[in-house]
């Protein structure tokens, strides 16, 4: 009797959250999808059915095509940079450094800064006429000056730099925890087996860090696919849409242009991109959790 009552109670406790998430997540996604398939592109709601025409139109839009390309470039560069820098810093910090706490905090604190503040600061820093260029010039490295985000061809990389500043500490922390989990005995066995430091990292340590690399890549990947705040604060759409991303496009077209159906369409495409990364990972990790 007690058990049945408790079971009912547990379902009751979860109910509000399940209902709330059901409505606010799945219900709203459904509604957004419906709007995406409607004709509502002005201030007055018009929910007549338009099928997949909005999607077709969107993929033909030059701005959106640029957005997709920007997202791809951004995601790949950001991922590679974040994982690489994070791993490098973790490896360096794992070697009994004096002042380890100082360095670790220096690398990690940007995570607590909002993308808005980060984007604003990096806008100032990478402003070609002031900012870092000034510093380079006064240090005698004027040759390294760059137009940063004012030059369409490389603007997106300026945003990547800001993103790396904010997020690579996170990857570093993950890798550091992973490195600490590799026992000394294992490293000694490798040394006795004949591994030099480089071989140790290549054959033993980095392969053992693969699970971390995977989780980090998934988390970073889905953040970069839906990036908005950072770009909005730093460059907006950028010269010739060179830093435009779907998040910004959606924001402008929906809340400045009142083209709700177009905005909804962009949102759905963003959702699908994120889902393609997250869902396989959720399935994979629940399967490995079941095994363990």
């Amino acid at each position, binding site marked *: 009797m007690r058990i049945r009552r408790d079971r009912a109670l547990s379902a009751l406790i979860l109910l509000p*959250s399940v209902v709330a998430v059901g409505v606010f997540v799945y219900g709203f996604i459904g509604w957004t999808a419906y709007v995406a398939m409607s004709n509502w592109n002005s201030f007055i709601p018009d929910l007549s059915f338009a099928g997949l025409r909005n999607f077709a139109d969107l993929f033909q839009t030059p701005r959106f095509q640029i957005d997709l390309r920007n997202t791809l470039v951004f995601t790949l560069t950001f991922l590679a940079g974040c994982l690489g820098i994070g791993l490098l810093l973790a490896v360096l910090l794992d070697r009994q450094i004096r002042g380890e706490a100082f360095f670790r905090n220096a690398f*990690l604190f940007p995570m607590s800064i909002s993308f808005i503040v980060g984007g*604003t600061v990096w806008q100032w820093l990478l402003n070609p006429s002031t900012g870092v260029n000034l510093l380079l010039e006064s240090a005698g490295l004027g040759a390294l000056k760059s137009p940063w985000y004012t030059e369409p061809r490389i603007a997106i990389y300026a945003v990547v730099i800001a993103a790396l500043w904010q997020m690579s500490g996170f990857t570093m922390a993950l890798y550091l925890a992973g490195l600490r989990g590799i026992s000394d005995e294992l490293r000694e066995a490798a040394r006795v087996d004949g591994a030099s430091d480089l071989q140790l990292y290549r054959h033993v340590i980095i392969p053992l860090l693969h699970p971390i690399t995977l989780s980090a890549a998934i988390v970073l990947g889905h953040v970069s696919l839906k990036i908005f705040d950072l770009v909005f604060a730093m460059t907006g759409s950028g010269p010739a849409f060179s830093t435009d991303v779907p998040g910004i496009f959606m924001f402008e077209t929906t809340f400045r242009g009142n083209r709700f159906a177009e*905005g909804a369409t962009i*949102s759905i495409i963003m959702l699908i991109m994120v889902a393609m990364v997250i869902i396989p990972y959720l399935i994979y990790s629940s399967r490995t959790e079941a095994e363990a």
Partner: protein
Amino acid sequence: MVRGRPRATRVLLYAILAFFAAFYLMPVYVLVNNGLKSFREVSLSRMWAPPQQVTLEAFGKALRELAPNLRNSVVLVVPAALISAALGSVNGYVLAKWKFAGADVVFPLLLFGMFIPYQSVLIPLVQFLQWLGGLLPMPLYGSITGLVLVHVVYGIPITTLIFRNYYATVPTEIVEAARIDGAGLVGVYRNVILPLSMPAFVVVMIWQVTQIWNEFLFAVIITSNPAQQPVQVALRNLAGSQIVEWNVQMAGALLAALPPLLVYVFLGRYFLRGLMAGALKG
């Protein structure tokens, strides 16, 4: 390799670390440096030079202009974090310690909510808040209350995840012993689980406070009136005056960044400790 590595490698190591440390700390230097300058002295072209005369006038002005927004942020963050933490705790408890059919379905569905781009729910959200606010005696769209509700709901997945993972590390024997002693679902929570929850609670609160304070998209859409806006949104508006007061801008950015930064500096080790205690894996 025996101890006593070549000195040269060690020097290179510190050099690389110092280079990166400079890269990471550079923005802070710029903010603090220029925030301490007077309006006459500050200019973008001299942003790297230290102030000839240190003054707090920029911070004072930024504080005055942002004070209502900072207050809005606090009014937003504290209830939202607390409520989402409370919900996460009971949800996590039920999912971790009470098996029932459907738990394996509910949990992943809940988790997915953590990853969605908020753009995909914005349009219905606005409509819903306007509708619901019309039903209730208080407005939801265009108010901090609405924003609190939004952050509570969208915070449920992550808080539930953290608490569930943490409670999974509590040995089932303790729960079973309590049940044999006569406690039911509520009794076990009150007498066993809740007293043990501090590490996970710390992690959740730190995470939610930081995330909600720093969040922009929901804030800018839902609070349209400048008087109600949290500080991240107000910061964008600070940039919109005719004559740009760079020192005030930078001081303002620093102020907006300060609370989560302080939380990280002072409570960071509790965050890590809570993580080690099992609050978040993978």
